[in-house]
């Protein structure tokens, strides 16, 4: 009997401990600050450094914001959660935003995080492939996103492969395309030129990239900061405060990139510091427009890219590009 009461005691103790842990983890908040949820486009990488700088340096707190940054496993859900208001802000891709808007999802880009497209075809240097047309008949790996098909169709056609992706073996290699390239399962992969080549180099592989914008794809804002229409309408002050802190964070990250990575690693100890330090040097120049403003978006670019997507048959309903973005917030930060 004593043994039984001991065991019951242990079980109750364990329950109590886990209960305390569970509930205490929920109570770490300050009451005066407004709680905000930000969804990252992917697991944390160097591109997000400005956000973490803003958090660690207290810029968000200065604006009265308590920002929770999280990375959803499936980027496809971000626009939904932002539209629903579960996430106040999200990082996402301009093409995806347009697709969402064509389905009536009320999301709007309030700042561009990257001024240029990052997509590129990546090949290993040792493969001897000099340009996209050398990929005729070879295996090109992608991650299963419809946009990739259109992007690389344009690239390959413009470089002389008549069938576009039809002239190559366009294979779905899943979300981690780099493994396919390094293990020889693909001759070229769809990539971000700021990301995979750096990782490959770390593993001892030199690579070449063919940026999509060099081969006839109109330039677009790869990563944008989005929010939903009701936020803009009902709580513009909040958007402004958020972006002010974000801009400050990115300004500082651009000035002191290694320090920014160090700050980011505080809440993300999983980061590979070496890779991140190299990545950030490639990404920082992309954060500011020619006019020096963080997040500035050119209307012409929105319009021409929307047209390109439309002519590629990707938008099921017509989209007014002008409604899809706004500069009003970043303007006030000038």
């Amino acid at each position, binding site marked *: 009997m004593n043994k*039984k009461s001991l*065991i019951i005691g242990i079980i109750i103790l364990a329950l109590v401990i886990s209960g305390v842990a569970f509930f205490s*983890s929920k109570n770490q908040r300050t009451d005066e600050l407004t709680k905000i949820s930000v969804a990252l486009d992917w697991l944390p990488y160097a591109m997000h450094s400005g956000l973490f700088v803003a958090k660690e340096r207290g810029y968000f707190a200065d604006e009265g914001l308590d920002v929770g940054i*999280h990375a959803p*496993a499936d980027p496809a859900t971000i626009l939904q959660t932002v539209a629903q208001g579960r996430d106040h802000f999200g990082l996402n891709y301009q093409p995806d935003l347009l697709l969402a808007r064509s389905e009536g999802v009320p999301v709007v880009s309030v700042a561009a995080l990257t001024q240029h497209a990052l997509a590129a075809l990546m090949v290993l240097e040792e493969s001897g492939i000099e340009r996209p047309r050398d990929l005729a008949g070879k295996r090109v790996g992608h991650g299963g996103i419809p946009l990739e098909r259109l992007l690389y169709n344009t690239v390959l056609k413009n470089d002389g492969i008549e069938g576009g992706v039809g002239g190559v073996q366009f294979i779905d290699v899943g979300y981690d395309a780099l493994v396919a390239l390094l293990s020889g399962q693909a001759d070229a992969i769809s990539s971000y030129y700021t990301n995979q080549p750096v990782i490959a180099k770390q593993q001892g592989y030199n690579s070449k990239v063919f940026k999509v914008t060099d081969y006839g794809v109109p330039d677009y804002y790869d990563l944008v900061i989005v929010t939903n229409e009701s936020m803009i309408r009902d709580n513009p002050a909040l958007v402004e405060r958020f972006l002010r802190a974000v801009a400050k964070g990115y300004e500082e990250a651009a000035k002191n990139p290694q320090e920014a990575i160090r700050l980011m690693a505080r809440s993300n100890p999983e980061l590979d510091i070496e890779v991140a330090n190299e990545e950030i040097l490639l990404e920082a120049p992309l954060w500011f427009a020619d006019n020096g403003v963080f997040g500035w978006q050119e209307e012409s670019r929105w319009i021409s890219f929307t047209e390109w997507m439309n002519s590629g048959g990707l938008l099921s309903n017509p989209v007014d590009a002008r409604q899809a973005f706004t500069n009003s917030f970043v303007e006030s930060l000038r």
Partner: protein
Amino acid sequence: MKNNQQQFKFPQVRTYSWVIPVIILFGLIALWEIWVYFGNIPKWQLPAPSAIAQELVASWELLSHHAYITLQEIIIGFFVALVSGVFLAGALVSSKILERAILPILISSQTIPIIAIAPLLLIWVGYGLASKVIIVALISFYPIAVNTIDGLKAINTDMIVMMKSLGASRWQIFSKLQVPTSLPYMFSGIKVGISLSVIGAVIGEWVGSSGGLGYLIKFSQPLFLTSRVFAAIFVLSVMGVVLFALAGWVEHLMLPWYYQEKRAKSINQ
């Protein structure tokens, strides 16, 4: 003379029983190390055991930080599974109506792949601890429930007659006969359930989280930090083994007669 002969028995079974698996394990590890070295396998494809061991030491803080998160999910989720599984089993066994109503739902709930449900759960419940706990509970409550039901039903009619003849009420028959009879079965279910809890936690983190060993694996893979991935997997399996052993230890504590009997029988063989 006779005494000497008796003492000369080799302690055969007990030493051999753990020496051989350990030797085999070390042999496999050595083979692995040699293969990676001589096969010139790139470290991002398959790291050598020595590299993994190094990583374990180097990233100890990181690994334990994430291990703690995963452990919380497992333990809380498992307890939810335990309570709900046992409770459900009791309810099902106590009433034929309930059994007919709930049993089909119980069984079909397991055919829905967790991987499909998990993302939906995340959208409804959020990315915090709660969603992981639910996923762990969903995966591990089934073996607990099913085994406990079997245990509660494994009644020896003669025993029931005996209890009745002593004047036992229905409740007494349940608490003093059925429940103790069901304990060995329940523990079988618990041991399966606790192993599944580890898998459940990883799946939950995989689908959406900001911490835990599953998250760490997912984060490190695209970065080709394969040693770290293997180190995390190693920690996960150690966790699973320890939890399983813990369950077995509790079982030994609660069912001393069961194990004494088994040991007595095996010695006599």
